[in-house]
């Protein structure tokens, strides 16, 4: 795989997942969750440009085949997105402590994917995709 392709993939993750996942979370001050903000957060997490954020993440950087999956920032973002994916019922119910926790996790996802994009700019792939012959 071209290094430029890896950089492109990491940049796409930061743009298509990280930035949008945190779109609402970054703008909620003092826990004032209006219905508009809750709905927008739900779209950020579960209808992100037409798919769930976790789905978008795994489509752009699949665990089994993406060279990005070898980076710690990928794992951080993946685990946080798994958590966020499971929070859906409580978020839809408007449970404020969960909304707060989700917003914090969304910001961490954005940060991890920005760090991943930065790392991809300066380094080569760290491993071959799983299943690749030695």
């Amino acid at each position, binding site marked *: 795989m071209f290094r430029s392709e890896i950089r*492109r993939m990491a940049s*796409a993750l930061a743009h298509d997942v990280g930035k949008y996942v945190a779109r609402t979370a970054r*703008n909620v001050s003092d826990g004032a969750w209006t219905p*508009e903000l809750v709905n927008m957060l739900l*779209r950020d997490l579960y209808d992100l440009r037409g798919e769930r954020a976790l789905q978008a993440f795994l489509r752009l950087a699949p665990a089994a085949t993406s060279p990005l999956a070898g980076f710690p920032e990928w794992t951080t973002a993946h685990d946080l997105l798994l958590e966020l994916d499971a929070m859906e019922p409580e978020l839809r119910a408007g449970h404020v402590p969960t909304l707060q926790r989700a917003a914090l996790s969304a910001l961490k996802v954005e940060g991890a994917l920005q760090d991943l994009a930065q790392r991809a700019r300066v380094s080569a792939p760290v491993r071959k995709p799983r299943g690749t012959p030695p």
Partner: protein
Amino acid sequence: MKRLLVIEDGNEYAEFARLFLSAHFHIEVAQRSVDALACLRGGPMDALLIDLRFDRAQETDLVGDVKATAERLFGGDRDRALRHLQDQQGVLILAELRAAGFGQRAVFIHEFLPRRMENLRRLYGLVFALPSFDSAAVLRALEGAD
């Protein structure tokens, strides 16, 4: 009230702008370069908020020729050329707007490398970029208070 033109291939920027910026700007939206130009020619506009990647746009709506780009940059690889045009579409649209004489402040929500940012400013003047949907920072950039 000041007017803001949002240019994107989806509705995420427009939704963000309507929720967080509408106290400061009247929001207009365009999803293609041709629509953005029509909007700008239709009345005064104070600032532009532009998405960078247009990966959901129809190929025929993109600025740039896929075939020519493939031959010029990618050894004939049409898929890579299409991805390239989609990935850089916001900048290509800005270039068209500047060429048509529209010099409004343009804000991207994207983390450009410093060298790229310098180049964008050299080519297109008032260009700003922010790494995230931070409404306070976006507002400062759009209003020139940064």
